[in-house]
């Protein structure tokens, strides 16, 4: 087993006199690393994203098959090829089936699930490597840094696995939010305990090999406690964070085996994932600490609720709404979380087509955090064949509301709440919103008067220009479409 302090960790591989096979493998790893960098870069632009994903996948395949056939450690090639291929085939079949079968609305939890699998994989590697050491004698004989890397891989991998599974359950609405008393103190304390044990065991202060299972157990518990209190709507941020955790866990494997492609891929995802997390927080106008610690609708929401609402709510019938829209010049649809939940994207597209046949201009206003993840709404609408250029981002659509006759808000709430601009006491104050109140009419489609995710009232509902259309988004839209066809 190569030690972390072994000279091979340096870039001068000449010291170990590599074989031809190893030299080829190193080149293949180089190719893999570059394909990851290039792949991520291309994923950042809509035109090249698909190709970028493909390039990274090819790089990955090259690295995997290169490892199987060319990897040598101390002159010994890898054996157990049947087992390896069996594992690859089983994983490929299950993975492809799951990925192909999942509905577009279920994408976020699927990402979380696969992320958890990567974390578990990293943790298992650490378990086996530790077992190697303790079989060879006392595990404390190994270099402290070597041990520390094994432990860190285990800790991060387990946290990522447990956390991702909870996030998966929450997004699938199988697990509810739960906060224990003193949750934050418990969490931070537990994390410290885990790290102290890992360090102590690495530096010969703990000699019982069962410490491995203690670390494993505590890390799994921490993963669960870490995600448990975080609200369902914040899950994308958490998944992105756990994603970067798994990246770091993979990088630990890279250190362990002095494997550059694992190190590159891992670190790259670790840093890119962390930044992506921060960027996503920014798009939601929240700080990362706020997401991880704060309960959004908690204490501050009271201020918003206390504010009495002037005016009254006016409902509109389906036929009136249909007439209003039919004789408009321009209609903007604001899709939100409710549309995604009701799976109403297809009938929404139908509505758009019917209106266009009547000569009405139809556009979609996409708030950066509409749906369950940034960009999720675009994916959902694109799935139901809504043309890409009809999806207008917030900054571009906002000036257009002044010339819009009807804004149809389907299952969105906080992203159209004017309190974000007018009420400094509101918890969402400062969040960029869609200026729908500039339009001549607004129609809000909602299941009930229940407050949105932020737990606050929406002034817009009480505006004289606004009409409410209560009911399930899919059902109401369907009725609206048939009404439009009839008149």
């Amino acid at each position, binding site marked *: 087993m190569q030690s972390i*302090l072994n000279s091979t960790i*340096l870039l001068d591989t000449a010291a170990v006199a590599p074989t031809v096979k190893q030299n080829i493998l190193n080149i293949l790893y180089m190719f893999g690393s570059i394909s*990851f960098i290039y792949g991520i*870069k291309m*994923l*950042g632009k809509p035109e090249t*994203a*698909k190709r970028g994903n*493909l390039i*990274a996948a090819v790089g*990955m395949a090259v690295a995997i098959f290169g490892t*199987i056939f060319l*990897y040598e*450690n101390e002159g010994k090639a*890898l054996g*157990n*090829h049947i*087992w*390896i291929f*069996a594992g690859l085939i089983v*994983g490929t079949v299950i*993975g492809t089936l*799951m990925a192909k079968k999942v509905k*577009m609305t279920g994408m976020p939890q699927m*990402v979380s699930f*696969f*992320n958890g*699998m*990567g974390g*578990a994989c990293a943790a*298992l590697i650490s378990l086996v*490597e530790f077992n190697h050491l303790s*079989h060879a004698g006392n595990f404390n004989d190994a270099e402290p840094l070597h041990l520390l890397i094994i432990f860190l891989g285990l800790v991060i991998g387990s946290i990522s696995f447990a956390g991702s599974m909870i996030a998966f359950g929450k997004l699938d609405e199988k697990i509810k939010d739960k906060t224990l008393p003193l949750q934050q103190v418990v969490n931070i304390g537990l994390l410290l305990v885990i790290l102290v044990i890992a360090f102590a065991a690495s530096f010969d202060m703990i000699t019982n090999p069962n410490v491995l299972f203690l670390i494993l157990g505590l890390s799994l518990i921490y993963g669960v406690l870490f995600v448990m209190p975080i609200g369902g709507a914040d899950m994308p941020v958490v998944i992105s964070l756990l*994603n*970067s955790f*798994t990246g770091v*866990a*993979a*990088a630990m*494997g890279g250190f362990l085996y002095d*494997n550059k492609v694992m*190190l*590159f*891929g891992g*670190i790259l*995802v*670790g*840093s*890119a994932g962390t*930044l*992506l997390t921060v*960027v*996503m927080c920014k798009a939601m106008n929240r700080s990362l600490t706020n997401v991880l610690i704060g309960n959004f609708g908690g204490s501050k929401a009271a201020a918003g609720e206390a504010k009495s609402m002037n005016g009254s709510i006016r409902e509109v019938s389906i036929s009136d709404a249909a007439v209003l829209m039919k004789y408009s010049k321009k209609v903007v649809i604001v899709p939100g979380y409710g549309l995604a939940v009701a799976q109403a994207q297809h009938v929404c597209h139908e509505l758009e087509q019917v209106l266009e046949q009547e000569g009405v201009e139809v556009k979609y206003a996409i708030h950066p955090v509409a749906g369950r993840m940034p*960009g*999720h709404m*675009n*994916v959902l609408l*694109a799935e139901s064949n809504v043309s*890409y250029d009809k999806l207008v*981002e917030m900054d571009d659509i906002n000036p257009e509301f002044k010339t819009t006759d009807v804004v149809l808000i389907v299952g969105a709430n906080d992203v159209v709440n004017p309190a974000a601009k007018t009420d400094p006491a509101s918890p969402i104050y400062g969040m960029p919103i869609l200026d729908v109140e500039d339009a001549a009419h607004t129609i809000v489609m909602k299941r009930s008067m229940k407050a949105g995710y932020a737990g606050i009232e929406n002034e817009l509902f009480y505006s004289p220009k606004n009409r409410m259309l209560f009911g399930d988004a899919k059902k109401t839209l369907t009725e609206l479409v048939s009404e439009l066809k009839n008149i």
Partner: protein
Amino acid sequence: MEQLLAFLSDNQLMVYLVILMIFLGIELIEKVPSVLHTPLMSGANAIHGVVIIGAIIIMGQADNLYATILGFIAVVLGTLNVVGGFVVTDRMLEMFKKKKK
């Protein structure tokens, strides 16, 4: 402490490499439109599946039942991460193709 300093100085190139990779990762993400956040996260998710190489190595070196079983599970889970990750990303991006008018 002395050990740590010696380690850092012995592995300077590695340390430089890691630092540069961190900056590169940040640089790559910085100016991505929010539309692409979800596919990008999913793509990055597939890339950290590179951890499967570690799983293949332990599987290939396994000489006892414990390592064989855990190694096999690790290979399966790692493959799930890689294959599932890339396929899901591809399906998402399928939606972004320019529609013909």
